[in-house]
């Protein structure tokens, strides 16, 4: 595959295998694995391919162990690919060329880069020196980031005394001071309360817009992706199940439509099961899912034979579809 000029990330046929040493429980098991280790190869990524254009905000979604974080670690240069082609900003990430590292940033929700015992400001100053950010640029970037993320008063506070949400915002600042062209975010909202999640999400969205930075994020929090990503890659067990616009998930995977009926008077619920699958019954509301092809017929039938006050036909919610995609993939 040839990389086009616009492609910030090119991944083709990427495979990553891990060697895992099996260990039996207990002390004896530990000794045994030391003497004759039982090695097993785990395929974390089974030949995945995708491109990301400059300025895109794309989300990786998948259950635990799907390969999201592994992909991110390879793209940022932490892991060596077993085979396949990977290029980010024209570099091979695993070489960790300093010119490459100056243009990227990786934020992991569960790994701190801030110095735990020092105020966040100290880490920022250190990053300024390491990334060789000129004084004026540093001051502008910092004051802007600090203002947007509302942490002006916390710069001098020891990092260990910050709340998780405050710390995450500081982590973002530390990662963005050098204005990376590509930003990798691994579970940026993990462990945060709903309000804090929203703050981080809004920030990521605005940042992508304002600086047209390429952002690749992973999450198993559906809201992150529905709110943020225009393009989604669904990954499970090391394989890409879907790569495209969020809206297209519906046309590709949604088999049912949802009919919501508001009744005038109470009806025997069983009668609805002749029309479709009853999802919910809570008088006056009945929610039924019916196959897409027959949704119009079903609606007509409902209007004719039931005391309907109001009726709507809707698409299945995206998170339900994605959840079902994973479930079906597990059964296969």
């Amino acid at each position: 595959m040839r990389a086009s000029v616009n492609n910030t990330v090119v991944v083709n046929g990427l495979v990553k295998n891990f060697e895992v040493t099996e260990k039996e429980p207990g002390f004896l098991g530990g000794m045994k694995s030391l003497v004759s280790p039982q090695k097993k190869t785990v395929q974390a990524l089974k030949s995945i391919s995708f491109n990301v254009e400059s300025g895109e905000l794309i989300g990786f979604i998948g259950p635990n162990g799907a390969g999201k974080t592994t992909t991110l670690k390879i793209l940022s240069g932490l892991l060596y690919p077993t085979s396949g082609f990977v290029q980010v900003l024209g570099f091979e990430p695993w070489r960790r060329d300093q010119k490459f590292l100056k243009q990227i940033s990786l934020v992991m929700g569960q790994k701190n880069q801030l110095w735990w015992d020092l105020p966040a400001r100290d880490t920022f100053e250190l990053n300024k020196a390491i990334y060789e950010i000129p004084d004026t640029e540093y001051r502008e970037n910092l004051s802007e980031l600090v203002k947007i993320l509302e942490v002006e008063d916390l710069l001098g506070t020891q990092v260990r005394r910050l709340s998780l949400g405050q710390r995450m915002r500081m982590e973002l600042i530390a990662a963005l001071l050098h204005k990376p062209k590509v930003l990798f975010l691994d579970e940026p909202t993990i462990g945060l309360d709903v309000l804090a999640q929203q703050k981080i999400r809004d920030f990521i969205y605005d940042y992508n817009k304002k600086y047209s930075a390429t952002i690749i994020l992973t999450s198993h929090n559906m809201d992150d992706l529905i709110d943020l990503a225009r393009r989604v890659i669904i990954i499970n067990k090391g394989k890409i199940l879907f790569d495209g616009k969020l809206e297209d998930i519906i046309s590709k995977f949604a088999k049912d439509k949802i009919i919501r009926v508001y009744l005038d008077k109470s009806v025997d619920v069983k009668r609805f099961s002749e029309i479709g699958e009853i999802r919910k019954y809570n008088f006056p509301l009945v929610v039924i899912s019916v196959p897409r092809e027959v949704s119009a017929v079903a609606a007509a039938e409902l209007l004719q034979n039931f005391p309907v006050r109001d009726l709507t036909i809707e698409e299945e919610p995206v998170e339900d579809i994605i959840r079902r995609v994973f479930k079906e993939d597990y059964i296969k």
Partner: protein
Amino acid sequence: MNVLLKKYFQIFKTSFNQEFAYRLSFVMWRVRNVLQVLVALFLWDTIFSGDRNELFGYDRNKILTYVLGLVFVKAFVLSARSQDVAGEIARGEIINNLLKPVDYFKYWLTRDVSSKVLNLVFAVGEFFLLYLIFKPPFYFQENIFQIFLFSVSICLAIFIYFSILFIVNTIPFWAPELAWGGHFLITVIMVEFLSGIFFPLDILPDKFLNILNFTPFPYLIFFPLQIYLGKISGFSAIKGIFVCVSWVLILLFLMKFVWQKGLKVYQVYGR
């Protein structure tokens, strides 16, 4: 200021601040050092308190100088931050530093230097305190050439220790659960016993010392102190320096080699 210099100066400063965040534990660590020196001082002082003038080729002056000299040489050579690297690897925190545009080894060497400076400042204070209270005899080396060789051997010792530490640091790449165990065995037990911290190594049988002289350990503490005391000079000093240089080269090469190997098998633990 040069950009590169600025970079490492900032690393130095931040690391220095970090050490100060643990003021109390640092002070306790220094107290422990002083107590160790006190024990050794009293022990040797008692041994020489009779009419014995010389033991194992040391007179009272020189042996007490050896013990006091330990305070400095240990601060120079053995104070280091880079023993934290093993833990960083085991916990997966190393990723933050691997993805920074800075040489990982130079980063930690700089942090070591900051630790050494801090420890040295305290060592000077402790030295004068001990000196004022106990007024022990102290042998001042006056030969400039000997002092020059002493400085060279200290510099080399710093690099030997740095590379030993980093080689041990790579253990968690393969066995994350051995992060602390490896350090305990190699950098604590081996270094403490074989470098001359507990006693001057030349009180050991010659045969044993001859073998030991081919390992890197005596060159950490014992060898520099022997040069300072003038017990090793001339040709044997030059020969020793040569062995030191060889070890520095071998260990640095080995360090880079296992580090590259380790990074390849590393799976970046912790998710």
